[in-house]
């Protein structure tokens, strides 16, 4: 237990905050990219520990959140086909499509199964040779090696009744997109640790150099996040813009080479739509032609589905770091984790859901209360 005490070492945390305060001369806006980091920041109140001029904004790095509504509707259309066993990570089951969620379809009789690993689909397909097993292959780069392995093994072992509905997103094109926006406020990034455990961080170097932004690949423990923030602020104050690695105990510049190799042999880069954001060029994966027999979109020929997101939802601006959950008039009232209106509320790692989970929707009322009490006195 000694080490657990160590990570909660308040003194060390305070000394990092004091150092940020000491070196900071101007306001800075820093984005953490990964949804796991967002969750940790909000849970531990790290954004509130920082000096006022250092603002953390929350990026697009939650794969469940950014899976487009059209893709969820497609998943639902496939899941209700006769003879289909539809498999998914548990996180996707409660995400509403245009008409209900996968849980609802399951209760209506569709064979929908939660799997721990994509490889479970191989076992299910072998045990049910007369059925078609479809896996909802969502995720960022961290999940791509697992999803790629399912396709690779199914192809190699001749398990023909397995296919994947691919909705894969890539981090570097999304941060490039954010930096290109005329409304951009982000001046530095905390890079996603577990994504870079697979990919390394070479591909972040041209982004950092071109847009002159520091990027520090960071873990998700409280001290990691504070230290990563300090490293970004140091660079901003010094006017440098390079990629640094705060998370060197887990990853290096090259990432996981065997995993990357398999991902590249199964997937190729393609344009992708991001929920709340729209199309981003070369920001996702699709299956390579050799694996077309395992492509659920080709096998099931689901028609393109046109969907409409609620006009009041500002998740697109939140994902780009332009706004925060509190800027939304329906945050925590009409829009809650049980009744999500858009991307950032549909998963626990979305900024709105994280704010809600830790009671920040209640904050809005607090200043009013203070004013009333002051007035009465």
């Amino acid at each position, binding site marked *: 237990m000694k080490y657990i005490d160590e990570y909660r070492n308040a003194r060390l945390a305070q000394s990092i905050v004091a150092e940020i305060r000491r070196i900071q001369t101007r306001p800075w806006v820093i984005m953490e990219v990964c*949804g*796991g980091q967002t969750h940790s920041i909000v849970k531990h109140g790290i954004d509130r520990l920082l000096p006022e001029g250092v603002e953390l904004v929350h990026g697009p*790095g*939650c794969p469940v959140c950014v899976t487009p509504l059209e893709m969820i509707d497609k998943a639902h259309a496939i899941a209700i086909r006769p003879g289909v066993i539809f498999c998914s*990570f548990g996180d996707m089951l409660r995400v509403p499509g245009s008409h209900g969620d996968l849980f609802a379809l399951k209760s209506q009789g569709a064979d929908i199964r939660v799997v721990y690993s994509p490889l479970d689909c191989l076992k299910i397909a072998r045990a*049910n040779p007369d059925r078609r097993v479809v896996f909802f292959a969502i995720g960022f780069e961290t999940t791509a*090696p697992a999803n790629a392995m399912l396709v690779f093994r199914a192809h190699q072992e001749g398990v023909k009744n397995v296919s994947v509905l691919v909705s894969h997103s890539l981090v570097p094109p999304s941060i490039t997109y954010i930096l290109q926006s005329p409304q951009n406020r982000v001046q530095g990034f905390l890079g996603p640790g577990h994504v870079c455990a697979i990919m390394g961080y070479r591909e972040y170097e041209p982004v950092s150099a071109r847009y002159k932004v520091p990027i520090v690949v960071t873990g998700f423990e409280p001290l990691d996040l504070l230290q990563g923030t300090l490293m970004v602020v140091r660079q901003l104050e010094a006017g440098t813009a390079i990629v640094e690695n705060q998370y060197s105990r887990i*990853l290096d510049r090259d990432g996981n080479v*065997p995993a990357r190799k398999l991902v590249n042999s199964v997937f190729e880069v393609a344009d992708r739509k991001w929920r709340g954001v729209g199309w981003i060029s070369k920001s996702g994966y699709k299956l390579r032609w050799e694996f077309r027999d395992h492509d659920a979109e080709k096998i099931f020929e689901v028609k393109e589905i046109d969907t409409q997101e609620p006009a009041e939802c500002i998740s697109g601006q939140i994902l780009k770091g332009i706004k925060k959950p509190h800027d939304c008039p329906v945050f925590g009232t009409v829009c809650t984790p049980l009744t999500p209106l858009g991307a950032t509320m549909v998963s626990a790692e979305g900024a709105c859901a994280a704010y809600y989970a830790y009671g920040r929707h209640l904050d809005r009322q607090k200043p009013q209360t203070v004013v009333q009490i002051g007035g009465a006195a």
Partner: protein
Amino acid sequence: MCLAIPGKVLEEFDRNGMRMAKVQFGGIVREASLDYVPSAKTGDYVLVHVGFAISTVDAEEAARTYQLLEDMDQLTELSAPVVDEITARKPQ
């Protein structure tokens, strides 16, 4: 769902040419592929994401990270149903 969970490799085995392991996460044991971390062996701690080891870690890091993930309620993927030859045949 992008966070990997640390666990201890209890034993290694082969399944259809894949290098697999039984990995212990707190009180739960699940299977994971070691194909992406060829150096990992019994007794090592590995970071596992959706059934695949992606990196090795030391015991201290593993204990700290596991505790943090538990505090953040980020261990739910470990409770997904186990698929074996019998359960694979039936709807959940």
